[in-house]
């Protein structure tokens, strides 16, 4: 469908005004909002992730594409709500206690949103208690833990242990990421997913929801 192809292109190009115009046009053409979301916005962000993985896109391109996607989503959201279309899952993300770095966590949030998730951003310096409260309040499918420093990595293990102690470990999956992190560390602390970058985080989360 040419209209949705144009929409995809405007998101990939990071053109927010064109994206919003295309969403308006698609709605005017009576294309179902869930189709505009899936075949337009989500499909485009998936391509953005692929281009990042291939070294064709870097952080600036990802940021402007995510901004365009959000602009389109803002127009689409009331229509999705009216049609009772739910997000494919819910994720609560944060940078762990003792760490104030947020660019990595923010990129993960954008890519998750672009993959169709509802994202609850808990911010930076997030304690185990705050994660537990978020799980109890929002019932996310997944929590995302970010750390840039080796000094704050151990907080991730604390959060996994706190989830177990609160009897919530089987209610939510745990995804970790950040510069010093590895798959081995994820395995060692009992996290479910290690994501080396934002597009991988979104991809892993989608795979998780698809079972």
């Amino acid at each position, binding site marked *: 469908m040419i209209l949705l192809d144009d929409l995809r292109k405007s998101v990939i190009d*990071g053109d927010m005004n064109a994206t919003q115009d295309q969403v308006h046009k698609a709605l005017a053409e009576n294309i179902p909002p869930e189709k505009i979301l899936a075949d337009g916005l989500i499909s485009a962000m998936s391509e953005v992730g692929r281009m990042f993985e291939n*070294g064709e*896109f*870097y*952080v*600036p*391109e990802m*940021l*402007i594409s995510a*901004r365009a996607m959000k602009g389109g989503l803002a127009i689409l959201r009331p229509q999705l709500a009216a049609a009772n279309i739910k997000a494919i899952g819910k994720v609560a993300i944060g940078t762990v206690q*003792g*760490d*104030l*770095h947020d*660019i990595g966590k*923010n990129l993960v949030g954008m890519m998750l949103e672009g993959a169709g998730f509802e994202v609850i951003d808990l911010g930076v*310096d997030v304690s185990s208690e705050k994660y537990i409260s978020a799980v109890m309040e929002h019932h996310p499918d997944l929590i995302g833990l970010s750390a840039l*420093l*080796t*000094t704050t990595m151990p907080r991730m293990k604390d959060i996994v242990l706190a989830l177990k102690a609160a009897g919530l470990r089987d209610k939510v999956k745990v995804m970790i990421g950040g*510069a*010093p992190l590895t798959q081995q560390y994820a395995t060692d602390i009992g996290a479910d997913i290690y994501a*080396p*970058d934002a597009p991988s985080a979104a991809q892993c989360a989608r795979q998780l929801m698809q079972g």
Partner: protein
Amino acid sequence: MNKREVIRAVLAGQTPPYVPWSCGFTQEARTKLEEHFKPLDIEEALQNHILKLGSDIGFFTDLGNNHVQDVFGVDWDRSIDKDIGNVTGCVLPEPTLQHYFFPDPLDRRFFAEIPDRIARYRDRFRVFQIGFSLYERAWTLRGLQNLLMDFYDHPDFVHSLFELIADYNIAQIQEAMNYEIDAVYFGDDWGQQRGLQMGPRLWHEFIYPELKRMYSFVHAAGKIVFIHSCGDVDEVFEDLIGIGLNCFNPFQPEVMNVESLMEHYRGRLTFHGGLSTQRTLPFGTVEDVRTETKRLLKMGAQGSYIFAPAHDVEGDVPLENMLAFIELVQNQPGYRDP
């Protein structure tokens, strides 16, 4: 040969009598070492070969409540990171420099201690430090996400901002040349764990021209150029060498193959760093640290290498692991503690 001469030999691609070193530590790690070495002064105990002059990240005014303000007006939260801090707020909320005035690059505080420090450590190689030397200075003022999008949204603004930052640095370097310095040590993180944050195209368009201008200025004065740039940035090494880079730090083994890069660039580029601070130092055993240090010393024996942990050592590194590499570098055959 004294320490200064050894570093000069290494930078000239000659084989040194031993591998020189210059290791940095965060406050927390430094406190552990000071406790261990007391009453010996930590600078004497470490025997670093590089003497750091100026102030790499500038001077700060205490705002109270663990916040400090740098000379550019940026507010830093030091409640957690006591060494640098994290930027709060945004000095340039809009992409314009219309109402912003740069601070005085010749602020005497940047130069006041230079003569005394040189007199005290005469045998060391003298570097004048300029931290946050371009991209980082820009994003601390504008906000990281804003700046990254400005590359596309407001390219003229980014060019102007970078040009003014480079002008500020050049004015400071010009003043530093009045002292007996050997090199200028720039600091500007461009990398992430994989690749450049902004990618090679934008790096070439925005960052490269200003680096070329700053490096040329240093070379015109007959001095050496060092750059510290964290992350996976080796794809721009050829460009950096082309505009006169002499020494690269931190040489992180988690993101680049230190052995093959050393082999490839030996004689054209010197590396400073190399010891894993994301894995071996915080999580390895003393034996792991010794093994990696020995491997690096062997790799650097032919020159073009200055040993160091690939970042200021963090507070989570056990004292024994710090002492392991300090002991090995100081016990190299050919090195005599003066």
